[in-house]
């Protein structure tokens, strides 16, 4: 027999053994309030500060400077830094052909005076006359057409995914999953607007990554809700209970997955951009990190309570208050995976009498509430006959 037959005394122990009984549904307002605050903050910031669109979206200024032994990409970068231009959004490339060898520097648009100053600085650094430094404007590379096509593709994707989730699960779950996804994207957009990070094509990819991750995570959680829904279909379990039980059951999985997903991104952030100095990775890593944490958070605190909200008015009204505390814990453990409520001899007797009597709801509930020790004292029955 495993050691799982006792309830661990510490919270961590209970978490580790899958014996938690957190009333997620009861705390749903906290999740909703946080979500609303984040969304309002993002929208407010979007209106007041906007998004800082990078070179690829807005174009900017470009310099072509003759390259030499003493003037390369690093030197050009140093010149930009000396002139107070952030090099994070700058694109510095060496372009060489048989006849010439240039350093091309592209930055977001600066004022004419600044541009002249930078031109002079480049000329000085490269040891050439200012007339040899070619200054020009550069357009965006990400035309509106790309955005249009991407948005269209995204909308079609969301429609098809909604249909898929509606078929595989149900439409309320599709709605809740999309809401959670929207929440995550808003959170990340919020980070970009509040902190004034530059939006690059890489950022768009980060948004899409987060969007996909959020949907993925929500579906994994919903799958368990769906499974438990089937298990409790016979006893009119309030949907809030099903949600709570499912959440507690997948909690450890969510935590483990979060840790495993977040570690590489944190490593990207700390080691890649911190120790190794690849600045391009920094904002990208930050966006991903926040998006992933938000994705995991929203699956539990936004999507599922929302789903319970959608479902609360569906079907027959539950006959009792939702389970909390030890009762919830018993249900979490009892229905863990066996797919059946543990029925001890006593409850079977009670069930048989109840079957002829009024309603078996209380009886089944009683079965759920069997003392944990009793629940686990015997191994699952071999499932040979009857329904699963």
């Amino acid at each position: 027999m495993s050691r799982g037959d006792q309830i661990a005394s510490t919270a961590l122990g209970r978490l580790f053994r899958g014996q938690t009984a957190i009333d997620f549904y009861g705390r749903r307002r906290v999740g909703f309030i946080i979500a609303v605050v984040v969304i309002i903050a993002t929208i407010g910031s979007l209106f007041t500060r906007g998004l800082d669109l990078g070179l690829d979206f807005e174009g900017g200024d470009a310099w072509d400077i003759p390259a030499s032994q003493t003037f390369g990409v690093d030197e050009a970068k140093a010149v930009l830094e000396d002139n107070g231009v952030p090099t994070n959004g700058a694109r510095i490339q060496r372009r060489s052909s048989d006849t010439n060898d240039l350093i091309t520097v592209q930055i977001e648009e600066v004022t004419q005076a600044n541009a002249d100053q930078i031109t002079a600085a480049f000329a000085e650094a490269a040891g050439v006359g200012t007339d040899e430094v070619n200054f020009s404007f550069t357009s965006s590379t990400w035309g509106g057409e790309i955005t249009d096509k991407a948005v269209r593709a995204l909308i079609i994707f969301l429609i098809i995914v909604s249909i898929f989730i509606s078929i595989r699960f149900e439409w309320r779950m599709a709605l809740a999953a999309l809401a959670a996804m929207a929440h995550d994207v808003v959170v990340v957009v919020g980070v970009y607007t509040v902190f004034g990070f530059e939006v690059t094509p890489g950022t768009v990819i980060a948004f899409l990554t987060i969007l996909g991750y959020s949907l993925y995570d929500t579906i994994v959680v919903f799958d368990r809700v769906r499974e438990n829904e089937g298990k409790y279909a016979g006893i009119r379990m309030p949907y809030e209970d099903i949600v709570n039980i499912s959440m507690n059951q997948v909690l450890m999985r969510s935590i483990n997955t979060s840790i495993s997903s977040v570690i590489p991104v944190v490593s990207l952030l700390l080691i890649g951009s911190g120790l190794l100095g690849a600045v391009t990775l920094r904002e990208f890593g930050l966006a991903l990190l926040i998006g992933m944490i938000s994705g995991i958070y929203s699956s539990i605190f936004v999507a599922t309570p929302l789903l319970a909200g959608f479902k609360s008015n569906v079907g027959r009204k539950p006959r009792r208050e939702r389970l909390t505390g030890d009762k919830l814990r018993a249900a979490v453990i009892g229905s863990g995976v066996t797919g059946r409520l543990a029925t001890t001899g006593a409850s079977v007797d009670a069930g048989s009498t109840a079957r002829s009597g009024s309603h078996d709801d209380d009886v089944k509930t009683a079965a759920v509430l069997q003392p944990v020790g009793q629940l686990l004292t015997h191994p699952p029955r071999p499932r040979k006959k009857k329904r699963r």
Partner: protein
Amino acid sequence: MKRRLWFSLIATVVAVIAALAGNIATNNEPILGLDLQGGLSVILAPEDGATGDDLLVVRDLVRSSLERSGVAEPDVRVQGSNIVVDLPGVKDKEEALRSVSVSGIVELRSVVNFNECAASPAPAVPTDETIAEGRVLDSDGTITVDGDPTGEVTPPVDEESIGFLNDEAKTSFRRSAPDPDAPVETDAPAETDAPAETDAPAETDAPADTLAPADSVPADGTEPVAEVPLDLAPTLAPSITGAEFLPTLDGNALCAGPSQASGEVFARDSASVQLGQFGQFSVSVDLRGDGEASWNSLATQCFNRLPSCPSTGVDTDGSARPGQIAIVLDGIVQSAPVVNVPVFDGSVSITGSFTQDEADQLSDVLNRGAFPVQVTPQETRTVSASAGGDSLRAAIIAGLIGLALVLAFLLAYYRWLALVIIGGLTVWAMAVYSAAAFVSGATNYALSLAGVTGIIVAIGVTVDSYVVFFERMKDEIRNGRTLRNAAPRSFNSTWRTIWSADLVSIIGALILFSLSVGSVRGFALYLGITTVCDLFVCFFFTRPAVLLIARSKFMVGKRAFGLEVATS
């Protein structure tokens, strides 16, 4: 059962290692994006007088042409007065120049009688008789009259016409080929002709304006429609300046009047191929608001058979047919439809006996025709990586360290079972690398920094498959099942979960890949690859590995999930 599991396990490992070895042996590596590896850059210079807006339009057109021709994720921008095209993964300059030679202005010209072209460099003064002769494009690009008339005039099998898209103008008209076709190409040069080919690479053997093949020619195939009816024939003296002979795609030639409009009258990227109810292909294209007038002016001339756009044949009922509009790209007539309505409203539909390839090509030409200015490649340069050379190294090092930490965590948590995760992730990584290398070779999709970080995120999603699986097993065992019993049950329910969740990612990857462009498409590609590899490894590696371990005595007495696994 056991043998099947072993087979699946070993076959997967062998297949993945073989794929990896194959890629390494053939030096097949994923193409890295501009930000990671740099590439080649081509500078396109526009002709004089191009405005900034023109250049922006050209930028978008160059980009979409490149995407259509399979060069993925190019970086196209206007810098100063030039257009700079950076191409990732292109190593050879010839290839770079070839891939950007997408420019070319489409001209719209009326088709006039051959005598108008007498003053042009065409060597022979065309007469009604010579019309019957096949004309071919010489290798030096001049038009010569084939000295070997076939003696057979094929009827102009009214093949192509332009009409409205909407029903009201269903009466639209057919459009006929500009001049009778030489039934068989007796002169090879036209086929191998260089200028014609560079502009119409896909079409070397399928002329867009081909008349119907002989078997579709009516029995009375001598109907002389190609001749200009006498009452409509203008004086034989040239009356139109600017008329010249232009080769058609099938190696013939026709006499076109001066250019009256450019492809700019068409809305950008609006041309598309439709399949009619009788299985015939047609090409429809939208007119731009500001281009409609110039198009309609030309169309009206042709419909009314004005001297500037005379009739070039008679209709089946014997009446003079309306004039034709020649759609000319780089001096080659792509199509010369007869105009069946005087005024077009919004869109134009070109019908005819196209093959699908021909229709596709015409549609491409019409889309490309929106080039407002001519651009010519000036120079190629190599471009260094824009993200700084060490970004990739940093990302890879950081990714590996992250991966090591994840594995350490999983090892601490799942103990012995984490061995399966390590094996599975190794197989997964090899599979992803092989697939990326293969796809890069086949499609030119470059792996950018965003893609690399996307793959790092995918590690998390992949590990999740194991976490879901093992957490489920933990529950089962805690509820008193033996490992042997718990493993297959857990896998079944895990597989349902993983499959549903991954299917969403795969749907996303497919849709984004097929409908979007640029780096979003690259993202979709790598999302698809990592997700499919995850499913593949989960079913063909993880499942047999865990089931076999569960059946063996390997885990007995060992710790896993922090539980001691009971003897079964």
